[in-house]
């Protein structure tokens, strides 16, 4: 097991990602942040809070998206997933949407998320922010716009992101 980002490095990375978002989206008036359930939401909670703090906006549109019903692997012999809550309390029609997930691996989750998102309306644009990009392991032509950390991994390895809210520590590790 190898630590990719410790507590301090993770915080610096989150700060950088929040600033990069603000650089492109300024006051977020035309932009919405949407985290992917379940683990992406822990990251998007942090990012949305940071963006709001730095921009001093009273309100930014922030939602959570569950993609269970859009997965393409329910008949691949995997254990069936019980869905989490989707809450998108605003219209995404004509908005810039930033999708957030913790780890980008094959790209299939993001494919499902885009399908799910389109059922809520037609966004002007969709960008992708991930904390860890497992580069060279993509099965679909999907690339992130904002990357916290890039790693080269093989299929059998696992990247795990721990969050203080759920796991009592902030850390990103690579498990062999």
């Amino acid at each position: 097991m190898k630590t990719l980002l410790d507590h301090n490095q993770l915080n610096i990375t989150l700060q950088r990602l929040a600033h990069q978002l603000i650089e492109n989206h300024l006051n977020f008036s035309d932009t919405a942040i949407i985290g992917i359930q379940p683990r992406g939401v822990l990251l998007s909670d942090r990012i949305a809070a940071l963006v709001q703090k730095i921009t001093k906006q009273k309100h930014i549109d922030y939602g959570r998206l569950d993609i269970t019903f859009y997965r393409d692997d329910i008949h691949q012999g995997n254990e069936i997933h019980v869905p989490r809550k989707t809450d998108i309390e605003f219209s995404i029609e004509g908005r810039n949407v930033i999708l957030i997930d913790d780890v980008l691996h094959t790209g299939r989750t993001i494919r499902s998320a885009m399908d799910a998102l389109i059922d809520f309306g037609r966004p002007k644009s969709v960008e992708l922010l991930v904390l860890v990009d497992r580069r060279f392991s993509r099965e679909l032509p999907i690339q992130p716009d904002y990357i916290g950390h890039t790693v080269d991994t093989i299929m059998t390895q696992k990247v795990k992101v721990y969050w203080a809210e759920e796991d009592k520590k902030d850390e990103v590790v690579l498990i062999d």
Partner: protein
Amino acid sequence: MSLSVKHLLGIKELKTEDIQTIFRTADNFKQVLQRPIKKVPTLRDTTVANVFFENSTRTRISFELAEKRLSADVVNFSASGSSVSKGETLIDTVNNILAMKVDMVVMRHSASGAPWFLAEHIDASIINAGDGINEHPTQALLDAFSMRERLGDLKGKRIAIIGDIMHSRVALSNIFCLQKLGAEVMVAGPPTLIPKYIQDLGVKVEYDVKKALQWCQVANVLRIQLERQNKPLFSTLREYALFYGINRQMLDDMKKDIVIMHPGPINRGVEINSDVADSKQSIILDQVENGVAIRMAVIYLLSGKRDLEE
């Protein structure tokens, strides 16, 4: 996290956790049904056959909508006008349907136990949409789901099932489901319509409907099933309505508000009066709405089972 069973034959075989998993999943589907696009692509690769050997409006439309909103392909079969009238057996009929690459069968049959019999002989997942006077599991799930929406956790809640208990598959499935969720259950109605020894299931028995209403927080009123009675068990419908029918006056005489439910179809003026069925206390149409979400959840959760078996 999936169900402990491959088929949904009866509530009797479900674990409490299975029921909770179905409810959690149905919560999400209910949310999907409130969106402008009420459809998800989850079961694009699945074909479901609705095989109905007995009449149905609600259940059949509800299952069909649930399947379509999951993007499954649907074929409908009803016994009237089919080869069943030429003497084809149940297994032959279903195997012929399955030979056309159907993955799941939703079946209603007038013989109690028919889905269990079928489950022993075919590979596809079976969902029981009502068998004779035995079980109607999805109805019980949507009833309990609707009660949970009103009352929260059903643990310790008092629920009365009133009417024709003897001929009702809804009653039996409701009893199993509510007890698994920790509720107290009472059955009430005329003695001729309540099976002997039903108290062995752990339910209270009451022959005075007013007392039952006084005791309960929810009254699930059942239809008088005239088509299943081959000898009269009460003298006239008018007499039944007079002694066992629920009317506005009875509810107004009580100091509390109880929730009124009915699985449909309603015999208005017999087991329930219009001024009760259409009142604010009634959640009859919520039950119908929740039925689609519950059935989507059951079909979704069972669909994952199919490849695990292979």
